[in-house]
């Protein structure tokens, strides 16, 4: 094990990094579960629940890892249920409301395209735990991407209505794309130590993958009306507070209880 991955060196950075990836997965899983029993088909209920389960599993590994790196005894539940929105470091993309089925699929497609590239690269991490998370997560993300990209193709090139809805979803979510590739000092230090993935370097592959699906979906890449920023450092849209209020309420109502 290199010095950079030892327990003391970079521990705070590794904790922060794992929280980012873990919060992405947790918040998106939480959003997807809102579809349960409300999807357009029973098959789709099953698929959305399946994706949510994968993401929830990833979140649990990453939050557990973050708690261990931090060394303050916080477990997955402590981290999931007792942080306020200012302490969550997920991308703003994943906290956006489900909207219609097109918005949910466009959000999933953009995120899974990014997450798959990230996890593929994370397999080479000098940190064996993160490498293992990348290994497993890349396979799951590939399945999620497949599912979401297929829907974007179908909806984009389906009926007039589905095309219009998908175009609107894309326009609404595109401002949240740049944030995936913004990078910062935490990431830069971990990249230098061979632990983290350089997010900025993923952009060309992301664009190529996105453009290919857009072409099949008879859609084009929109201009971003604004640029979302700040999710990684705890700045969120108004939506996250409501999501967390619902997720955390019961747990916080019984402090110290086990479930």
């Amino acid at each position: 094990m290199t010095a950079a991955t030892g327990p003391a060196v970079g521990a705070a950075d590794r904790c922060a990094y794992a929280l980012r990836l873990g919060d992405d997965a947790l918040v998106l899983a939480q959003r997807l579960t809102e579809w349960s029993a409300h999807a357009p088909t029973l098959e789709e209920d099953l698929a959305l629940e399946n994706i949510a389960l994968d993401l929830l599993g990833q979140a649990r590994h990453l939050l557990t890892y973050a708690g261990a790196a931090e060394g303050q005894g916080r477990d997955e539940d402590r981290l999931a249920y007792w942080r306020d929105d200012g302490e969550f470091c997920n991308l703003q993309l994943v906290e956006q409301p489900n909207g219609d089925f097109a918005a949910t699929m466009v959000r999933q497609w953009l995120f899974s395209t990014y997450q798959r590239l990230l996890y593929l690269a994370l397999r080479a991490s000098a940190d064996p735990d993160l490498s293992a998370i990348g290994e497993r997560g890349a396979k799951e993300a590939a399945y999620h991407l497949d599912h979401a990209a297929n829907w974007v193709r179908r909806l984009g090139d389906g009926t007039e209505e589905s095309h219009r809805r998908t175009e609107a979803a894309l326009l609404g979510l595109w401002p949240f794309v740049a944030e995936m590739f913004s990078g910062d000092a935490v990431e830069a230090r971990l990249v230098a130590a061979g632990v983290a993935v350089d997010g900025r370097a993923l952009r060309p592959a992301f664009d190529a993958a996105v453009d290919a699906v857009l072409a099949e979906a008879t859609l084009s890449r929109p201009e971003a009306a604004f640029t979302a920023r700040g999710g990684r450092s705890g700045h969120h849209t108004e939506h996250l507070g409501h999501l967390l209020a619902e997720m955390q309420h019961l747990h916080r109502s019984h402090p110290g209880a086990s479930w």
Partner: protein
Amino acid sequence: MAQEAPGEDQRAAGFQALVDADHRLEPRDWLPDRYRSMVLRQIAQHAHSEVIGMQPEGNWITRAPSLRRKAILLAKVQDEAGHGLYLYAAAETLGVAREELVARLHDGRQKYSSIFNYPTRTWADVGAIGWLVDGAAITNQLALTRTSYGPYARAMVRICREESFHQRQGFELLWALARGTEAQRRMAQDAVDRWWWPTLMMFGPPDARSPHTAQSMAWRIKRVSNDELRQRFVDMAVPQAAALGLTLPDPELRWNADRGHHDFGPIDWEEFQRVVGGDGPCNAERLRVHRAAHDDGAWVRAAAAAFAAKHRDPVAVPA
């Protein structure tokens, strides 16, 4: 009519002989119309129940009090969606498409289990449903693994395996609450108090007043009567409640050594009839949500169909 063609009476007798010999009936076999409609009614009602049942439990996924419990509940609700799919597929072997079955649910011609017309008010209700409702479902479904209609029997075998996980997980959820804080223990007891009687009603009216039981038993669609299944369930649940340290809300519940079974108090069949008839706490809401999801998804299904038509392999399209 050609002489060798069997008449209706002969066919019916031949059919009954197959049933009596415990022959598994398949969609290609000659089946009396009334048998088909009884089996279809039962499978469709069962499929609708799996799907409507996703609502009361789904009510707690976003609020589950630990990530582990959230994952277990999410996986359970996903299993129920899968059960719905197997059962709709089994129903479709009788020549009625899922879309038509859903239409019959929406216009009230077909029903779902009345148990799901009760609300899940607290987290403990998730445990009570797993332990009691899935427990009752297993009792019923184990018997149905020997039902005379092959596709239904096979669906039951697959489903029973998953239901037993659900029951264990529900029990374990209540176990944690019963050993938790005073508030958690109260929550668990309150849930059991509210779900016990509706669960006993799940087995249907007493045999003497059950309109379809005799024919259904004769054709071996049903293998065990409502009252006998209910008794089996009570005998299973009583020691489990004791292990949980929770009480069952029936002062007349006691072991009867002569019968070798537990006696239990009278069931409020008026409440049952009322809730089956539509006047339960959640009937309107359950159907409203199902209908809304179906209607809101219409444009998605239309888009998928349009895309498939546009992109069908040209070789496969007849000229």
